[in-house]
């Protein structure tokens, strides 16, 4: 009961914030609405007993990504009202979004999902670490992520370095 209530509160917050993100004119407030949306999603993770994921969501999305988005906004104060060139696309975009929403809702409702019957794990950190780093888990994918970060750092260096004369 309490869990269901929490879920609905978070869900309403997430959707409302997401709607604000697309409808607000002021681009800084848009970014703030995005943060609220991220936090609400983190709340959803908590209702799913995925506390580690929720903390990671806050840390990465709110603490790092949103902050970088805001920083980018601050550096481009001229576009605080959004791009006027996008305005004629409003209706087509709305149509596409509505169709997509209908499709996804239909898919979610009509599909026979695989639902696990086991109760959620109480301390999630141990099993999670075994999944991420254990030899019976996804250690290779984790290691590839490390290589991916190396590639991203190299790319960032390339793009950030000043062009030589």
């Amino acid at each position, binding site marked *: 009961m309490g869990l269901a209530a929490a879920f609905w509160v978070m869900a309403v917050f997430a959707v409302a914030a997401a709607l604000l993100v697309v409808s607000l004119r002021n681009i800084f407030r848009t970014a703030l609405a995005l943060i609220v949306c991220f936090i609400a999603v983190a709340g959803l993770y908590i209702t799913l007993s995925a506390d580690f994921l929720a903390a990671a969501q806050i840390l990465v999305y709110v603490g790092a990504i949103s902050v970088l988005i805001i920083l980018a906004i601050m550096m481009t104060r001229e576009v605080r009202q959004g791009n006027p060139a996008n305005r004629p696309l409003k209706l087509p975009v709305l149509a596409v979004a509505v169709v997509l929403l209908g499709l996804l809702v239909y898919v979610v409702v009509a599909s026979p999902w695989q639902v696990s019957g086991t109760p959620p794990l109480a301390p999630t950190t141990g099993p999670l670490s075994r999944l991420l780093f254990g030899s019976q888990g996804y250690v290779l994918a984790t290691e590839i992520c490390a290589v991916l970060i*190396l590639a991203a750092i190299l790319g960032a260096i*390339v793009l950030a370095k000043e062009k030589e004369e």
Partner: protein
Amino acid sequence: MNPIIFNLEKLPDWFGVLPEIILLVFAALVIILDLFVSQKKILAAVSLIGIIASGALSLGFWGTELSFFNGLILTDSFAVFFKLLFLGVSFLIVLASEDYVNSFRRLQGEYYALLLLATTGMMLMAGAGDITTVYVSLELTGISLYALTGFLKDRKSTEAALKYLLLGAIASAVLLYGLALIFGITGKTGLGEIARAVQAQLSGSASVSPALFLGLVLLIAGFGFKIASIPFHMWVPDVYEGAPTTVTAFLSVASKAAGFAIIMRVITSVFAAPDWLARDWATVFAVLSVLTMTAANIVAIPQSNIKRMLGYSSIAQAGYLMVGLAALGSSPFPGALAGMSPAQSGVLFFLASYAFTNLGAFTAITIIAQKIGSDEIADYAGMGRRSPLLALALTFCLVSLIGIPPASGFMAKFYIFRAAVQADLLWLVIIAVINSVISAYYYLRVVKVMWLESPPSAEKVPSSALPTVSLAVSCLGVLALGTIPGLIMKLAEMVNQFMP
């Protein structure tokens, strides 16, 4: 299966990714050496050694059917074929880059390292046995390529990198959603497990659940971006034009081949059974193929920039390749797991042929652009007189792209179309042949400009040693595949996918 010396049960997990690890070590070595050596050619040499070492190790896995890391990575002849293809391509690219990298002298180490990292990602894609590995290796490739695209740092290159990044991010989001839906409906991440779960769910029923259907559509869209099929091709012309020419060559060959490798891993083999499901996605590929070929060939005609033109041409080639995918799904033995599918070997042969052909064309363009400083077709006037050998090589590659014997492009199309006819897709083959004829127009226009028009200056176009070697190897490859196709075809027919 070949006899293997090692005790298979006791192989440590890291053994399965040894070729990738070697390549990665050499990538790191390149970065570190970059700090100390002033003669940057050493970096190219180190990269080449790494590629050769990795290739030799990959070869050792030919014929094995092993899974490592709990099924996250598979080694089979399919993976080895593609790994060798990717390594071969990056070998030739490194050779061809010799002069070109001088335009970004300070970043040469990063250039080679990112090239190797992208290749590593593609190799992992070819061997992926789990949707997590599929996704992260795809991202590894993608991120390296985004950075490589922006290497020139001029307006066009930056714009190209940004477009590629944005559209690539959307495509990978789409792909991830598809993977999530498929995970949700099957509850599994391993490709083999997913295949069995799908088969179990669909046996006896005549329709797919909406989630599986949407998941499959999203997968095709996500991978469609990678192989640049219309309507997911928007990035191609700008990116190909803006990126450094060597990177464009890498993109058009290796990245596309990786896309097809992953499609054959994730779609055509996992969703091979039941038959009607295979026919469903085969129809999707057939429709996409028609769209891709026709639109790309028509749009390529008015292009005046040769990189842009080759961009559209490479989209069209993806269209021909998708004829093979359609045949793979509609053949009596759908999917690669049935083994010896003529469609699969056709696609593999086409990819090998296309790799040599397109690399040759792009290397020629790189050398010419170094000298004349332009990618406009009009500036190629009289190239036949200014540099007969270069022009000849480029002509030969363009002829191969049309599909005229003795170049390999002919045999490649022949194999794929034959497989399609056997799979009752005659209508598709007819459309493809009509398209080949259309494409002849714009390829031959370049040939005409090069040989029949008078040059603006009599100055020769010189070329330095290594790029010429790369070009020669490519042309030889095109010729060899065209005249003795049986050799590589035998190999392609032996290729089999392993699914634990």
